């Protein structure tokens, strides 16, 4: 069968903190709040810091 798994973008957000735009939330549970919380559909205060963000200093 010609099927090749690429990945799952819904799991992608947990790997890398990302800005979820004010009117265009692209990360359901980023918990980041750089998006201004109001429009974010997700909320986690626990850290979502990833390998990518481990050197973040703010």
């Amino acid at each position: 069968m010609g099927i090749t798994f690429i990945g799952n973008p819904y799991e992608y957000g947990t790997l890398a903190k990302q800005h979820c735009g004010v009117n265009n939330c692209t990360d359901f549970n980023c918990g980041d709040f750089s998006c201004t919380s109001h429009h974010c559909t997700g909320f986690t205060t626990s850290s979502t810091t990833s390998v990518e963000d481990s050197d973040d200093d703010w």
Partner: protein
Amino acid sequence: MPPHYSICLQKTVNKMKFSKFNLILRDEKYEQPVLFNTLSGSTFFVDEKIAAAVEKRDLSVLDEMGMEYLTRAGVIIDDCMNEDNIFTYNRDNIKYSSEVFSTTVFLTWACNLRCVYCFQERNGNVQHMDKRIADRYLKFVKDSTVNKGCKNVAVTLFGGEPLLNIEVGYYILEELQNFCKENELGFEGSIISNGTLLTEEIVQNLVKYGCNSIQITLDGVKEVHDSRRITANGSGSFDETIEALKLLNKLRMIGTVIRINVDKTNLDSTYNLLDYIGKNGLNLTRCYVDFGIVKGDTQACANYAGNCLVESEIGDVLYSLWKYAEEQGFRYNIAPARRFIYCGLYKENNYTITPNGDVYKCWEHAGEPVHRVGHIDNRGMLSYKTPVFYDWMTADPMKNDECRNCVYLPTCGGGCGVISYNETGTYHAKGCYGEKEKINRSLIMFIDKTIERQKQVDKELKE
């Protein structure tokens, strides 16, 4: 057993079917079509034969292994499964979640800028929120948080220009921060400002009171920004805004989002702006860049509609900007998200409060009486919810054929109530503005990045 049958949980033999949420995307950069299940998120390259089978919902071409593989991925499901129910169940869970009590509070209607597309100072209103109203608001938030059993409190300071009334903003942040500490709740503060009045002292105070993100708008290079974001005395605001961003980038104390509002009139110069603020320019790459698409659809900015991008262009425009911003050193992880609601404002515990204590759902409608959902009274209670509240909260994409039958629904959430209202006069229409193209393009961003990472892993393994 034929491959299109399986044993379901009830131990009965059930027929299988393709999920209604399978999207086939063909893009010239890929040799094969992409199959993306918008409910499960599983994403594949598939050959044309399988793509055609998915589109025709014809299981007969799949062998047993293919059936099993795609069933595990949610692409094929038991015939007895109703995916509308799955969507509604999850949507309800999120809508009525007590995870967070979240408000956007307008500290003032006044603004020191006169942006060409903006609704602020609606009807000449320059009212500040005073301490009396702030106390009512605080009681409302604290009581609601306790009564609803919320685990977190979030507040966004907005306006008008919130820095024109920041003392009340500090008061609100400090009160809520202390309340959350005393009650062992999470607290998140944020502010949306034009940045022109920002000082180091203000940043330090915001951080002290628990504000951990700030959003500031830039609309292009100096001549473009200055023609759109004009001060009350007619001069431009670019230099002051850039100084604020430099300060934030230097202090590294608070997450910073640079919002760039894009329409036909400034699209070209947006690339020049990214050059200017990117790694080879001012290097403000510790900030996030967020592109907002200007829509001339609120009452106050309808006369700007002619300058807005055509809906069909939005996906391509955003994709190009995301890519270019990445090249200039800004961090991006664009990917489709699972969204059972379009926006946090569909949650029961999300409100917008204006300086006089009026309550709205969305800030886009703040100050328009027809959209008011209530008022915080002198006991700090939202004692009477207007019919608008119930109208907004019962908007349900499953009651709308266009949304219910849309393959994008689980990654869109049913669209924006404000767009819906402005286009149709109700909150109950699809409220879709370039969403499908945005989702397609964000999926391509995700695939590009995944392939890139895989190549990197392969390279490292070889080495």
